[in-house]
C-alpha cells in the first residue's frame, strides 16, 4: 500500500481564483494510496517546501504529487525538496493545475473537478514510479578533431589551451585546408596565409596536440565520454623522424608535371611533394599514384639524393586506436568543379575557372606569383566575367540552397582583379547580392563604386567558345528590361556552389551522425544546438555543416570547443535517468526481448546495441537488445514500437502511463 502525499498550491490566487483548492486536497485525501493531502498558499516558497519535507518525514511518504504550476516551471524545485527529505526525487510528480486548468477555465464546478481528475491521474502514476538514480558515465579527457582546416585548427587550439589533450587528424599531407589556398580575405583584404600560418605552427608545437596528417578516421565505436577511434596513417614513404624537410628530393623527382591539388590544377608538383611552402608539417610525402617507382618499379631518385636516408618505400599504412571523450567534426566542404556545368562548357574551356582557382591566381604564393594570367596562354585577361550562383539556388541542379560565401568572394575577386589589372574590365552576373555581415555590404559597394566593377543582375544562360577561340558569355540583364547581353571575355570565373565533401556520407555513417539531403552534417537543433549532433559527444564546426565564411567557421569552432571543454571538465557525466531499458528476467527467458532488432532503426540516437547473454561456459544463449544509457535521450519511440513490450522507459513506463490514462477517466 503506497503512501502518497498530495500538496495543492494556491499560487497566491492564480489557482485558487478558479479552483477550489481545499476541495481538491480533500478529494485527494480520499484517493486510494494517498496518506496525506493538504493545500497551501505558496507551495514553492520556503515554508511551502518545508511543509512537503515535513510531511514526507512525518508520514513516511513514498510518493508526492504537487498540484501547482507547470512541471516545466517548478518540477526541479519540488523534486529537490523531496530529495532533501530523503525521498527519491523521481517519486515526485507535478499536477499542472495552473497553466492547464485554473488559467484556462472559468471558476466553477467543472474546473475544480478537472483539477481533481488531474491529481487523480498523477496519484495513480506516482504509485507506479520507481526510484531512479542519475546515470553517471565516465569521461575520457581527450578530444578527437577530424579535419585540419581553420575550423579544426581553431577547435584543437581552444581545447588544448584549456589543458585537454587533442588528437587532430588531417587527410592531406598538411593542415591548413581551404583557408591556406585563399589570397586575401574579405572584407579587410588581409592576407589569408599571414593570419593562418602562425596558427598552423602553433598546432604543430602545442604540447597538448597530437597531429596526424595524411591520416583518416577508419572507424569510431563507443559513445559520449568513451569513444574509441581507429585512425589510418597512410604511408608517407618518408620517415618523419629522419627527414629534415630540406626539400632536395622534391627538386630531384623526375615526375614534375603532376597537376597540384593545392593550386587547383593550375600549377604542377612532383610525385614526392610538400603541398605548399608553409605546410605543417613541412615534410614531403610520396604520392604513390604518380610515383615512377611505385607505378613502374624503377626510379628511386629521391632515395639516392636524400641526405638523411629518410625515404622508406616499403612503409605500410599504419592503424592506431585512440580513446577519446569527445569528437569534433571539421571536415569542411568543396566547391563544384567547372565540369559540373554543361552550359558553361563542361570544363572544356581552359579559361573558365572556379573561384578557388582564381584565389590561386591572385595569391602571391600561387602559380603566377599573384598575377592574374589566363590558364590557357598565360596572358593577362583584359575582360573578366564573374558568374555568381553557379549551381547554388538552382533546384534543377539539385542545389536549392544559397552557398553563402560566393557574393562576398566574387566581389573580392573582382576587386582584386581591378587592383591588379588597372585597364581591365570586370563584370559580375548575379541573382541578388547577399552581403549580410559586419562591413560586408560596404565592401561590395566599394567594389561597385570605387573599383568600377560592372554588376549585372541576371543569369548567364551559356558560356561558349566561338570558332575563333573567344569566350562568349550570353546572359540577360533583368534591370534593363530583361535584355539579352552578350559579353566577350578573356576569362570567366564561376562562383560554383559549395557542396559537401565526397565521403561525407560515409564519415557520417561511421560516426552515426545525421546529414541533410545535400550530405552536409546535421545539427542537433538548428538554432539552439548549432554545434552539436544528434549523437551525444560529437560536435560540428565549419563548412561541413553548410558553406560558411571564415568568421562563422571560427565562431562555430570555438563554440564546439567550448562544448567539448565543458564535457571534458567533468570526471563523470551525469544524465537524467529517463531512458529506455530492455527488461531482464529470470532464466530461461533472461529477457522478453526476442532480438528482432527492428527497434534499432526506430532510435534516432543509435542507442540500441546488441548484447549476448552467455551461460557459464561462455556460450551464447540469446542475443538481445540493450539500450546504452549514455546515448539514449529518452524519446521512447522504441518503447511503443516493441511488440513484446520488452523495452520500457523510466519515468514514462507502460504501467505508469496506462494507470494515468485509466485514472483520468475513472469517475462518473
Amino acid at each position, binding site marked *: 500500500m503506497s503512501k502518497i502525499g498530495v500538496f495543492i498550491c494556491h499560487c497566491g490566487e492564480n489557482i485558487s481564483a478558479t479552483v477550489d483548492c481545499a476541495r481538491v486536497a480533500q478529494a485527494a485525501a480520499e484517493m486510494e494510496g494517498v496518506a496525506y493531502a493538504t493545500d497551501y498558499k505558496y507551495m514553492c516558497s520556503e515554508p511551502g517546501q518545508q511543509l512537503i519535507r515535513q510531511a514526507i518525514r512525518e508520514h513516511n511518504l513514498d510518493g508526492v504529487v504537487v498540484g501547482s504550476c507547470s512541471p516545466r516551471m517548478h518540477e526541479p524545485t519540488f523534486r529537490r525538496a523531496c530529495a532533501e527529505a530523503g525521498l527519491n526525487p523521481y517519486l515526485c510528480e507535478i499536477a499542472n493545475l495552473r497553466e492547464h486548468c485554473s488559467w484556462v477555465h472559468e471558476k466553477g464546478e467543472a474546473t475544480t473537478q478537472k483539477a481533481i481528475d488531474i491529481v487523480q491521474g498523477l496519484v495513480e502514476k506516482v504509485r507506479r514510479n520507481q526510484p531512479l538514480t542519475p546515470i553517471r558515465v565516465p569521461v575520457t579527457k581527450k578530444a578527437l578533431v577530424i579535419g585540419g582546416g581553420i575550423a579544426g585548427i581553431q577547435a584543437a587550439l581552444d581545447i588544448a589551451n584549456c589543458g585537454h589533450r587533442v588528437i587532430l587528424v588531417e587527410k592531406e599531407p598538411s593542415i591548413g585546408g581551404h583557408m591556406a589556398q585563399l589570397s586575401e580575405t574579405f572584407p579587410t583584404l588581409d592576407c589569408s596565409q599571414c593570419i593562418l600560418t602562425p596558427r598552423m605552427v602553433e598546432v604543430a608545437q602545442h604540447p597538448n596536440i597530437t597531429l596526424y596528417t595524411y591520416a583518416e578516421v577508419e572507424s569510431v565505436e563507443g559513445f559520449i565520454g568513451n569513444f574509441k577511434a581507429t585512425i589510418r596513417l597512410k604511408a608517407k614513404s618518408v620517415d618523419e623522424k629522419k627527414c629534415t624537410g630540406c626539400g632536395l628530393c622534391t627538386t630531384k623527382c623526375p615526375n614534375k608535371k603532376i597537376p597540384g591539388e593545392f593550386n587547383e590544377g593550375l600549377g604542377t608538383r612532383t610525385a614526392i611533394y610538400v603541398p605548399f611552402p608553409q605546410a605543417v608539417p613541412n615534410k614531403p610525402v610520396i604520392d604513390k599514384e604518380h610515383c615512377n617507382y611505385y607505378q613502374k618499379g624503377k626510379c628511386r631518385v629521391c632515395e639516392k639524393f636524400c641526405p638523411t636516408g629518410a625515404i622508406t618505400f616499403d612503409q605500410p599504412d599504419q592503424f592506431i586506436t585512440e580513446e577519446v571523450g569527445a569528437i569534433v567534426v571539421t571536415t569542411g566542404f568543396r566547391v563544384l568543379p567547372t565540369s559540373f556545368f*554543361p552550359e558553361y562548357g563542361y570544363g572544356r574551356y581552359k579559361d573558365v575557372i572556379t573561384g578557388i582557382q582564381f584565389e590561386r591566381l591572385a595569391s602571391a604564393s600561387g602559380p603566377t606569383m599573384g598575377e592574374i594570367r589566363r590558364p590557357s596562354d598565360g596572358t593577362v585577361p583584359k575582360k573578366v566575367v564573374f558568374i555568381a550562383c553557379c549551381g547554388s539556388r538552382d533546384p*534543377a541542379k539539385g542545389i536549392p540552397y544559397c552557398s553563402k560565401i560566393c557574393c562576398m568572394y566574387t566581389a573580392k575577386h573582382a576587386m582584386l582583379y581591378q587592383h591588379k589589372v588597372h585597364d581591365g574590365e570586370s563584370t559580375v552576373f548575379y541573382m541578388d547580392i547577399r552581403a549580410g555581415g559586419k562591413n560586408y555590404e560596404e565592401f561590395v559597394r566599394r567594389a561597385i563604386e570605387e573599383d568600377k566593377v560592372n554588376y549585372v543582375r541576371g543569369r548567364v544562360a551559356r558560356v*561558349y567558345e*566561338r570558332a575563333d577561340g573567344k569566350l562568349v558569355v550570353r546572359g540577360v540583364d533583368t534591370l534593363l528590361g530583361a535584355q539579352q547581353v552578350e559579353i566577350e571575355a578573356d576569362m570567366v570565373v564561376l562562383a560554383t556552389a559549395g557542396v559537401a565533401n565526397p565521403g561525407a556520407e560515409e564519415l557520417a555513417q561511421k560516426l552515426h551522425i545525421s546529414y541533410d539531403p545535400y550530405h552536409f552534417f546535421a545539427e542537433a537543433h538548428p538554432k539552439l544546438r548549432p554545434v552539436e549532433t544528434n549523437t551525444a559527444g560529437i560536435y560540428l564546426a565549419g563548412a561541413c555543416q553548410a558553406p560558411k565564411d571564415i568568421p562563422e567557421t571560427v565562431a562555430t569552432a570555438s563554440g564546439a570547443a567550448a562544448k567539448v571543454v565543458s564535457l571534458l571538465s567533468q570526471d563523470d557525466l551525469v544524465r537524467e535517468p529517463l531512458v529506455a531499458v530492455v527488461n531482464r528476467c529470470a532464466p530461461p527467458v533472461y529477457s522478453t526481448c526476442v532480438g528482432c532488432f527492428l527497434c534499432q532503426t526506430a532510435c534516432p540516437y543509435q542507442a540500441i546495441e546488441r548484447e549476448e547473454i552467455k551461460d557459464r561456459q561462455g556460450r551464447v544463449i540469446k542475443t538481445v537488445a540493450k539500450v546504452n544509457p549514455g546515448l539514449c535521450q529518452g524519446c521512447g519511440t522504441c518503447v511503443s514500437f516493441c511488440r513484446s513490450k520488452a523495452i520500457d522507459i523510466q519515468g514514462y513506463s507502460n504501467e505508469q502511463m496506462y494507470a494515468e490514462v485509466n485514472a483520468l477517466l475513472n469517475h462518473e
Partner: protein
Amino acid sequence: MKETGFYPGCSLQATSREYNESVRALARHLSLPLREIEDWNCCGATAAHSMNHELALALPARVLALAEAQGMEEIVVPCAACYGRLATTHHTLVTDETLRQKTCDTIGMEYSGKLKILNAVQWIEQYVEPLLANAVTHPINRKMACYYGCLLVRPHKVLQFDRVEDPQSMDRLCALCGSEPVDWAFKTECCGAGLSISRTQSVGRLSGAILSDAAERGAEAIIVACPMCHSNLDMRRPAANRSLGQKLDIPVLFITQLIGLALGIPRKELGLDRHFVPVPQW
C-alpha cells in the same frame, strides 16, 4: 512486334510532310508497325496553353484518351511541340487526380494515364537503334551538328529525357549512321519558334546565330527532330542569311531522314526534295 500508335499532328500534314514521310519510310523499311490514332485533333500547341489552361489540357487529353480507347499502349509523337504538349498533359493528369477527373469530364472520355508517350528520338532509340548496326548500308561520313531546340528535352522534370543542357541522344544516333557529330554551343538555343510568321526578322537573327556556329564548327548539315526548328532553319534561310550577311547553304535534315539515307532508302521516299535548302548527294 508491338504496334506503336502514331500521332502526326498538323505540321506533319503540312510544312513538314517530309518528316511524316521519313518516319513512315523508316517504319516500313524496318517493319516497325505504326498505327495512326483515328480521329485525332490538334494538340493545341502554343496558342491554347498561353490562353486557356483548361483547353490546353483538354485538347491533348482527348488525343491521349483516343489512343487509349483504341487499345494503344504507347504512341510516338514526332513533332517536338506536339510531344511537349502531350507529355506535359499526361504528366499533369497523372499527378493531379482532381484535374484528371475534371478534364475527363470536359472531354467526356476516360484517360487512365497508362499510355507511354515517345518522341521521335525515343522511338528511334527503342526500336530503330538496336537494328542500326546491321541495317546501315550507306554510312553517311559527314560532320553533323545535332540541334535539339527548346522543346525536345524540356521541361526536364516532365519529360525526363536526355541531358537538358547538353543533350546527346541524336549525336549518338548520328555516329551510328557513320557521321561525325560536332561539338558546338547552340544545341538548345532558341530558333525563334512561332515568331516565324509574325517576326521573321527576329527568327532570322536567332536561327542565323545557330546556323553560323554550326557552319563555323565545320558541320556539313544540321540534324533536327522538330518541324518548327526545321522550318526556321530551312524555310527562313533567306532571313537568316540576311541577318548574317552571309550565304550559308548548310542543309537541315530530320534525324529520320539521316537514318533513312544511311539505310539506303531512296531520297524521294524520305521527302528530301521538299527542302528549301537542297541536300547534296552524299
